[in-house]
């Protein structure tokens, strides 16, 4: 059977990928998806540990995370739309009028 460490490493890798995505991608939607990716990496970690400890808390957590992620998605997409409305683009690099 696969040792737990692998799951964890996979999750960590996912998390880092999500993180880098957030840092480098220019399309707001993609960036947003990368955040979701990070959240899912967390879910994976939770589940792995839940399995290790053999208690349900991890699963519960994962469910909560998914639920909250959905809520976030709702508001996030709304905001992205608002951004698109106001300036006709969702390119992150263009969203920088307020600085210094």
């Amino acid at each position, binding site marked *: 059977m696969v040792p737990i460490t692998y799951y964890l490493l996979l999750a960590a890798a996912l998390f880092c990928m999500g993180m880098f995505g*957030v*840092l480098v991608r220019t399309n707001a939607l993609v*960036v947003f998806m990368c955040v979701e990716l990070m959240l899912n990496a967390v879910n994976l970690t939770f589940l792995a540990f839940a399995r290790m400890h053999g208690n349900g808390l991890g699963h519960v957590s994962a469910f909560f995370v998914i639920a909250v992620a959905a809520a976030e998605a709702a508001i996030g997409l709304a905001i992205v739309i608002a951004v698109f409305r106001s300036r006709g683009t969702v390119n*992150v*690099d263009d*969203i*920088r009028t*307020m*600085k*210094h």
Partner: protein
Amino acid sequence: MDGTLVEFFRTAPIPPEVLSPSLGLIILLPLLGAFVCGVFGKWLGRANVHLVACSAIAGAFVLSLLAFWATSDAAGGRVVSMANPFGLDRDTIRYAIAHDYGTWFAAGDFRVNFGLLVDHLSGILLLIITGVGFLIHLYSTSYMEHDDGYWRFFAYLNLFVAAMLTLVMADNLVLLFVGWEGVGMASYLLIGFWYTDSAKAWAGRKAFVTNRIGDFAFLIATFLLILTVGAFNRQADARDYNAAGSSRARYEQGISQKGPVTFKGLEKLALALPQGSGGAVSLATPIESGPLSGYTFGGVMTATMLLFLLGAAGKSAQLPLYVWLPDAMAGPTPVSALIHAATMVTAGVYLFCRMSSLLVLSPTAMATIAIVGALTSLLAALIAFAQDDIKKVLAYSTVSQLGIMFMGVGMGVFWAAAMHLMTHAFFKACLFLGAGSVMHGNGDETDIKKLGGLWKEMKWTHATFLISTLAITGIFPIMSGFFSKDAIFHGVHHNHLHGLEWVSTFVYVLGLLITASTAFYMSRVYLLTFTGKRSPEAKLAHAHESAWHMTLPLVILAFLAFATFVYALPLMPRSGGGTQPVFENFLSPVLRPAEAVARAAETVKLDTSSPSVGDYAFAWMWALLGGGAAAFAYLKFFPSRVGQPVPAFARAVRRTALNKFYVDELYEFILIRPVKFVAFILFRVVDALVIDTVLVRGTAYVTEKVGLGLRRLQTGDAQAYAAIMALAILGGAVYALLQVLS
């Protein structure tokens, strides 16, 4: 003499114990006068101001007379005397009255009292100040008749008199210092009286600041004395106190009652310090504890006295601080007469007579004083040669005469110095007032070259001026000036400072030169002003004699200038046998401690012989020499050579002398300019640039710049923000892992 007459003179109309509580009035009256004239003078009007001012001084004069009288009171054979707060019970102060008005201020273990003391020395000065002062007030009523500032003038004059009286009546150094600076302040105001002419105002400031240099030394000297008293109290043992006719208990009680700087207390200190007592403390004893530890009492005393010399030099216009006095002539002439001839400038001499007992402890200081006096006197005399401004000449002659007094003080002939102080007050006041009258009668012309032939038009002025000239020069011997000056020179010649014998000879020789030159330049002034024919470029065709307000004082002063010579005659029996001059005998109660100290400490060998006829003749010869030279030069030589070119060297010498040997310029160059320059540099560089700009504003500047820099990080790019967060997290994680590994 007739016994009843003696009795009359020896019974004071108001007995001392009754009088002494009202000594303060002598100061208060002029002060009140000053207040009234100064505040209400404008509304009072000229006549009332004159009345107030003169009557204030007159009242002070009457009181002084009574006080003076009381000091010699011996009603019923019992000489006036009072207990010495610093001495044992049997130790009394004779021929003096005093009153203590209680504490002025006290802090820590220091206290100063409003203590007034009138003995024969201060009594004489009281009379001079109020008497001459009154005459000069009278004179001024006419002299200032055309000036709108009359009320200010009389207010200042009264103020001055009050301050001067405080100076002489004070029984302690600090109170004396009040008068000391008070007169300086008054003279500042009076010199700058015509302030609209800024040159005159500057002269006033110059006088005040120069005096302040002296006061600086005076203060430090006072502090040194206070420290010395403390050290003495810590180290002395019973024998020391006995030698001073006191005991520790009494001495400390005296200090706690009257403070450490009372003259009587200092006198005790002086009496205790000489080696003779065999006590624990003598001049050579090093001070063990306190700020002065390490120095010997003698050394400290010398330093103190030298500092007092600097202080006195400021007030009495001696080297190196004499420069203010000639400029002080900017003031109205009566002021020059009262302040810059008769009274204030002699304060230094008074101070040293007052502290004679301490002074004689330090031959070094005495020698310095004598030499400074001699040099000043000679220098001033030389400068006086070439001055054409009549007041300037008189000013320099004042400096010169003060120098003579300092010679006397320095060589321990205190009584003669005091006497010369008195006679000088008379004849110099007379000369100044005479000069004033001349100016008054000649449209304020002061250049003697532009006067001449006044003897016809201004008879009174001429006569009195002549008498005073003779008095100061001593060309005609039976005059006060001759005797007092000669008494000084005689003493100078025969007194010897321990270890510094050469000084007496040196100073004596200078003295003879001074006699000659005095005779020369005074005769010159007299001749050019009064004899010959009226100069073509005179302002007025005809001079007019002044009103009686002005001539009367002249006459009285001239008379005094003549008559006071009797005091120099050796008529009184000397305690040790033989005779002594009246004035010496008269001052002996004041000066006896000094003699005792001198004898005990063997610092000065005081000579008691009186000058023989031969000595007089010798001195006279020098005077004649100078006078003759002047007569020849200005009656024969120059008149005959009018129009012929003057040799170059003569012109050079004359120019140098005329420019006072460039001393003012020297000071300007080595003292005033540098200070101003340093001040300017400090302000521009240290204050404005280094501290304020670089340090203070610099900090603010750097802070702001750093802020601006950090602000640049705020690019507005969300991903950059995230990146930084990620880096921070990474750093944290790494740190955490390092923690784990370690």
